[in-house]
């Protein structure tokens, strides 16, 4: 294993001249960098930390509190560092059946992050709400949906940076140069030809899921051909989030659409394996999740909803009355606009709830299921159905319209 080359500033950090917290962060980064054969570090402009308390547990929260207890002046992040969704919306914790212990853990985590100088944005759609990265901008993003969108749609450069590594990048202002920071890693490894362009968000998510399954691992870069028109941000949000979830994929190219793939030859060498995906393949993935006709809860989340999605949902809620709970989850940046536009009130008038700053699967989903008796869950998020099976749910994938109908009748119509 070759040692990473460090510059003077990095040697100073390693010598403890910036204090124990940056030193600890750099040591962690060297461990990971050398594991992947990184030659050196690359400066990053922003970091984004996934750190819900279900993942951290008591041990992770204590670890964070240990960093936060360091002397002021030696513990703060040195680049803009923001957060992924939290594990609760404090205003709606009762609706979710969350316990005071969970909320205490959340409060301790928030307090520790604030002492470290982290901005609590609590969003997984920061590319829509905070600041989208630009082409070739090196970043340390910590949500797979954020990484794949930023790499693919924006042309930025990030690996999946889990919470400890994203925080380390915030504290040192750099990350090991490996993976998708390297130009040669961004070339296509397989071609995908589609014969059908989805129109619904669940259709885009299902297509992303099918591609993710085919591509199969983090280092695969699918090059997709055959899509018609110009996909919208929300469509690519669901497409990428599902591809990352089903396949651990961090970068895709859409020929003629995404910035690095003006032409097929820009990203795909001759002779790459070619896979064809039909409309039937996409529908088959969706049907595979339709395992029941009854629904206990409807959830729109993963990723958090944009203002446009909430506007569409509000339109579907007008004049309706729900018989089962309907949860719509958005970011703290979008929620005030949803309130101002009247979308929140229209969703709530039908019996739904708009939650903010969390994501359903990052909020103790297993305990929510047990506390509320929610098993059969309908959603338009392919990412969410892929995750929730392991949490004991029977998740079902359908259009936003069908999900709203299911919230009214308690039954999900097969399509």
């Amino acid at each position: 294993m070759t040692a990473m080359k460090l510059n003077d500033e990095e040697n100073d950090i390693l010598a403890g001249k910036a204090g124990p917290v940056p030193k600890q962060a750099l040591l962690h980064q060297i461990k990971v960098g050398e594991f992947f054969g990184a030659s050196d570090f690359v400066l990053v402009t922003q970091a984004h930390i996934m750190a819900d308390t279900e993942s951290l547990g008591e041990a992770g929260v204590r670890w964070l509190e240990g960093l936060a207890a360091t002397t002021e002046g030696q513990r703060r992040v040195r680049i803009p560092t923001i957060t992924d969704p939290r594990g609760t919306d404090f205003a709606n914790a009762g609706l979710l059946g969350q316990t005071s212990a969970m909320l205490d853990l959340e409060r301790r985590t928030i307090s520790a992050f604030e002492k470290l100088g982290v901005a609590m944005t609590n969003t997984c759609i920061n590319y829509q709400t905070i600041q989208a990265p630009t082409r070739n901008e090196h970043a340390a993003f910590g949500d797979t949906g954020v990484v794949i969108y930023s790499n693919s749609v924006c042309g930025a450069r990030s690996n999946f940076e889990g919470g400890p590594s994203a925080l380390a990048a915030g504290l040192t202002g750099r990350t090991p140069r490996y993976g998708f920071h390297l130009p040669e890693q961004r070339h296509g490894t397989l071609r995908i030809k589609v014969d059908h362009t989805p129109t619904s968000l669940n259709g885009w998510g299902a297509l992303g899921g099918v591609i993710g399954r085919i591509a199969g691992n983090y280092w695969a870069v699918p090059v997709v051909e055959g899509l018609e028109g110009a996909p919208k941000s929300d469509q690519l949000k669901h497409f990428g989030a599902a591809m990352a979830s089903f396949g651990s994929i961090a970068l895709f190219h859409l020929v003629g659409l995404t910035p690095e793939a003006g032409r097929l030859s820009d990203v795909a060498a001759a002779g790459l394996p070619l896979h064809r995906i039909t409309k039937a393949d996409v529908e088959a993935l969706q049907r595979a999740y339709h395992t029941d006709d009854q629904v206990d809860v409807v959830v729109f989340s993963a990723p958090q909803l944009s203002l446009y999605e909430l506007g569409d949902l509000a339109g579907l809620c007008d004049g309706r009355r729900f018989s089962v709970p309907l949860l719509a989850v958005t970011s703290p940046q979008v929620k005030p606009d949803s309130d101002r536009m009247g979308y929140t009130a229209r969703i709530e008038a039908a019996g739904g709830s708009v939650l903010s700053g969390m994501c359903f699967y990052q909020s103790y989903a297993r305990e929510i299921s047990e506390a509320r008796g929610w098993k059969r869950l309908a959603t338009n998020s392919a990412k969410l159905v892929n995750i929730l099976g392991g949490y004991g749910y029977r998740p079902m994938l359908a259009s936003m319209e069908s999900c709203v109908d299911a919230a009214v009748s308690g039954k999900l119509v097969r399509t």
Partner: protein
Amino acid sequence: MSARVFKARHAMGPIVRGRALVANDGFSARYDLDRIKGIFSRPAHKLAGQSYVGRILVLDTAKGGVATAWMLHEMKSRGIVPLAIVLNSVNPILAQGAALGDVAMLAGFEEDITAAVSNGAEVEVNPQESLLKVI
């Protein structure tokens, strides 16, 4: 009979020895595990219902999201953790999680490691030499 030895391209953590739990399937702590019971819980996973505690997991590839980077550390704090993780293909999240949790990890072999190692075999994970040994 001499040990069979497999060289890994990526290695991290302490030397450990134990029984292998093998499947040609992926791994994500959030997607696949009931971390309270210490078992694989995703119904479609090939190890569904089996305990991973104290076993050396030999699996195909890292899957899913970023939560495993925290979860290995949390699982280790409760002693409900695999002894080591061995993969054909790793992603940054599992490596970052192994680094924080000090869990032994090997990845990247010349052959399909899930086919080369039998389920239940006694194996040694030696990250210092980047070697997996079937005893």
